[in-house]
């Protein structure tokens, strides 16, 4: 077990493994995203209440899922880096943070736009949108803290601690915001309280969610590989790699 962890953790081995994995992920991501989009935009029936603005769900929900799972993944990668000192885990955490922040912003923007036809205003302090806004601040905090330290591995460790503290607080924040929202607007319409979506609406959503996750994996692999090259530039295997690329 110990040998496997360290072999898995060696940047060189990860670099080569991800080289093989990456094209498959990109292929799957593009395939899933295209089919999901076409299905969601063209063929899925419009919602009887909201009409076509319902189609925003095929972008909003996957982005919201991804925003939260990227933060959790980042916290787990931070824990792996802090406990087992595996540098690749921290490189992956550093690579995925901006992606998570971007997905949070996308979820926030699409959620707000989705609310316009139903609520008539651009911003509505809906429980889920508020939690998403706070999640965006947590992302910005982690990214800003990572960059604030002179030495890279101090910044990495600080960002890992903050990601772990943040991930413990996400359910607490979500619960308190939901409680706060129901206290002040008990009866109003909430976006996600969907009774049960019919299959032809729900299936494209599943495909889009899978597409978003494949996109996330592919992009994180690519950015982690760049991070490996940047941090291991002095290693012999990187020099050899550069040599043969010249």
């Amino acid at each position, binding site marked *: 077990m110990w040998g496997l962890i360290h072999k898995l953790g060696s940047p060189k081995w990860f670099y080569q493994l991800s080289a093989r994995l990456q094209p498959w992920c990109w292929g799957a991501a593009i395939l899933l995203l295209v089919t999901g989009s076409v299905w969601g935009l063209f063929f899925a029936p419009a919602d009887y209440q909201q*009409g076509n603005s319902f189609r925003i769900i095929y972008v909003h929900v996957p982005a919201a899922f991804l925003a939260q799972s990227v933060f959790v993944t980042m916290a787990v990668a931070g824990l792996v880096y802090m406990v087992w000192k595996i540098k690749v885990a921290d490189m992956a955490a550093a690579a995925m943070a901006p992606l998570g922040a971007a997905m949070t912003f996308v979820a926030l923007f*699409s959620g707000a736009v989705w609310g316009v036809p139903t609520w008539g205003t651009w911003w509505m302090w809906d429980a889920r949108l508020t939690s998403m806004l706070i999640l965006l601040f947590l992302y910005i905090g982690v990214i800003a803290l990572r960059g604030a330290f002179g030495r890279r591995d101090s910044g990495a460790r600080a960002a890992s601690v903050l990601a772990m503290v943040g991930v413990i607080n996400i359910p607490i924040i979500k619960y308190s915001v939901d409680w706060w929202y129901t206290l002040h607007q008990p009866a109003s319409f909430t976006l996600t309280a969907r009774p049960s979506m019919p299959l032809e609406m729900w299936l494209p959503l599943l495909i889009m969610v899978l597409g978003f996750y494949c996109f996330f994996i592919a992009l994180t692999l690519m950015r982690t590989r760049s991070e490996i090259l940047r941090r291991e*530039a002095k290693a012999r295997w990187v020099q050899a790699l550069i040599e043969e690329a010249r």
Partner: protein
Amino acid sequence: MTMASLVEWAAMGGHGRFVWSAWGVTAVFMVGLALHARLERRQLLRQLKRQARRQTPSPPRGPSHDPDA
């Protein structure tokens, strides 16, 4: 798919503005992130090559032009 039905579909029953702005922003971010990652990688490789070239004076290259440079 006549032109008329295409325009009618794009209008999305009046909600077109919202649907396309949401999808548009998502597409911009995802494509932007992907392109940025590729650009970042290409710049990094070029920078590493320059450093490698600076440290080890490379043998005088023949007339063939280096495609990557």
